[in-house]
């Protein structure tokens, strides 16, 4: 029994799990059905139809944002026609009505940063608290929050409006931001995620070292929670960027509109008799509205999926 013997065995032991992990990764990479990986052309064609269905409206949107108002009404919808007017349309969209679109864009960014960021932060604190602490009333918190997941958000919109108008909050950014701060689903995801991702031993060690609970949370736990946080951030990001019903009822001043409500207003204006016909701006504005969220989505969708998997294992 020399020391080299010992190091050898530990090295072997360390290698063994790594090896098995490697093989299982390879298996997963080859994907589930190791035996028949023959690609099916028929399946690819059927899925191709679904793919076309999914992308066709987006293609239509892009094609038509390159057309002038006149071409829009007089050409085939799924192909380019006339002058390539995309840049003109973008400039027209951004400058129409003293650049109100830019203002709406800024509002949307404000609602998304404060709303989605705040919702993720509150869900992280709360989910972590539920996963890692026992406290009086914990069961009641569970019951109330899980019950709230079943309460349809929009059913609450009208009563929330009535209450906020009593409090003088309507027609201010707060009316849109405050309700966005709550994501029961996000809380649930972080709670299930934190149970495994943050080992209780680590917290105990930090406590022994005299670290306060919040210091431990911000310096250690948040890092361990990062994949779960990205998932929640993406959910809340899409939800706040796409929020329509809530700002529609809360805001009457166009200066505080987000993009969604603004676009709807432009579209109504185009329908109104005697209104300025600005379909090309509605279409180009729609394109500009989805570009940032689609880009964010494409960059971050992989995290989303793994986070969902983490949630569904527990569910």
């Amino acid at each position: 029994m020399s020391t080299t013997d010992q190091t050898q065995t530990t090295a072997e032991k360390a290698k063994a799990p790594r090896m098995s992990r490697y093989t299982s990764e390879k298996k997963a990479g080859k994907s589930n059905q190791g035996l028949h990986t023959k690609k099916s052309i028929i399946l690819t064609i059927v899925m191709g139809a679904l793919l076309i269905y999914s992308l066709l409206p987006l293609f239509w949107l892009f094609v038509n944002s390159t057309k002038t108002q006149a071409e829009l009404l007089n050409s085939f919808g799924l192909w380019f026609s006339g002058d390539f007017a995309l840049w003109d349309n973008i400039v027209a969209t951004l400058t129409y009505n003293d650049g109100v679109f830019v203002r709406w864009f800024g509002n949307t960014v404000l609602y998304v940063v404060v709303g989605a960021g705040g919702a993720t932060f509150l869900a992280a604190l709360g989910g972590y608290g539920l996963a890692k602490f026992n406290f009086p009333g914990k069961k009641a918190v569970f019951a109330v929050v899980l019950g709230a997941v079943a309460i349809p958000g929009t059913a609450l919109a009208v009563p929330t409006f009535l209450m906020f108008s009593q409090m003088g909050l309507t027609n201010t950014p707060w009316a849109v931001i405050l309700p966005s701060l709550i994501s029961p689903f996000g809380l649930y995801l972080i709670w299930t995620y934190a149970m495994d991702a943050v080992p209780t031993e680590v917290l105990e060690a930090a406590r022994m070292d005299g670290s306060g609970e919040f210091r431990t949370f911000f310096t250690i736990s948040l890092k361990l929670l990062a994949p779960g946080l990205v998932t929640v951030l993406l959910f809340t990001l899409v939800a706040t960027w796409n929020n329509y019903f809530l700002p529609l009822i809360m805001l009457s001043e166009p200066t505080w509109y987000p993009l969604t409500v603004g676009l709807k207003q432009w579209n109504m204006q185009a329908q109104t008799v005697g209104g300025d016909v600005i379909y090309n701006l509605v279409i180009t504005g729609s394109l500009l509205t989805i570009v940032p969220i689609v880009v964010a989505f494409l960059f971050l969708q992989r995290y989303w999926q793994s986070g969902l998997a983490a949630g569904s294992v527990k569910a």
Partner: protein
Amino acid sequence: MTTLSTLPPSGQTRSSQAQPRPRKPHVQKRDWTGWKFVGPFMIVFALVLIAPVLYSIYLSFFKDQLVGGNSFVGFENYGQALTDPKFWESMGRVTLFFVVQVPIMLGIALFAALAIDSARLHLSSFFRIAIFLPYAVPAVVATLMWGFMYGTKFGLVGNLNEFFSIAIPNPLGNTWVLAAIGNIVTWEFIGYNMILFYAALRVIPTDLYEAASLDGAGAFRIIRSIKMPALRPAIVIGGIFSVIGSFQLFNEPSILQSLAPNTISTYFSPNMYAYNLSFSGQQYNYSATIAIIVGLITAVIAYIVQNSGSRKEA
């Protein structure tokens, strides 16, 4: 040798076993530390969720009249709602929507998830991302795009009519408008449900497939006996979200209304009815009553979906 090689792991387990022991009394003691973390969420939660629920329950028991002002009327508003033909017409419409649209959407999403998971698809990750993409598109933009495409004058439907000299019925006419809305909602949420199902499929241990194929099970047998049982919780979750979404239908019909004002009434869906009662009719008390009834019915149906899903499993 053997004792030495088992030393490092046993050392680890000893330390992890040792730690819970001092924690136990720590847990038993009334420790309020957790509230510092849960508190901020619960305060905002109380303000934006609990308070509106209580406030709308309060409102639903009162009536604001020209003569007599605000007065307590007990369950009168509920009685009025339950005998209101407009309310029932809107409930009937979303029920029909739910019964037809949700199975179609979940069925396509399930098929797509199984196809992507099957490893028999070329470019499967491209399919996955592209089909998921519509979920990121705001309902407003989705409805505007489809609304324009539906247009018989300058939309795609108009193009097709002109090109083939045919007359496709107007998608925004009385007969087809619900299907037209169903198509928009399906387009928006196939990808979301597909990812939900796909995530559940990915966590199935691969050994199960190998064991099954060694036993001579084919792809369809594997789907029926291994994948479908594993998918059940995800299908229940997708079903519950879809129930809530159907009964809360608002964005799509409300935006299409400006394109089809004659087909989409102010009480097309229960939510539109509640909205229009509040914002066009100033009937806040009655609007709150409708919102409460819709919420209760939605919760009951979501509960039934959840129960029937877990019962099958047993």
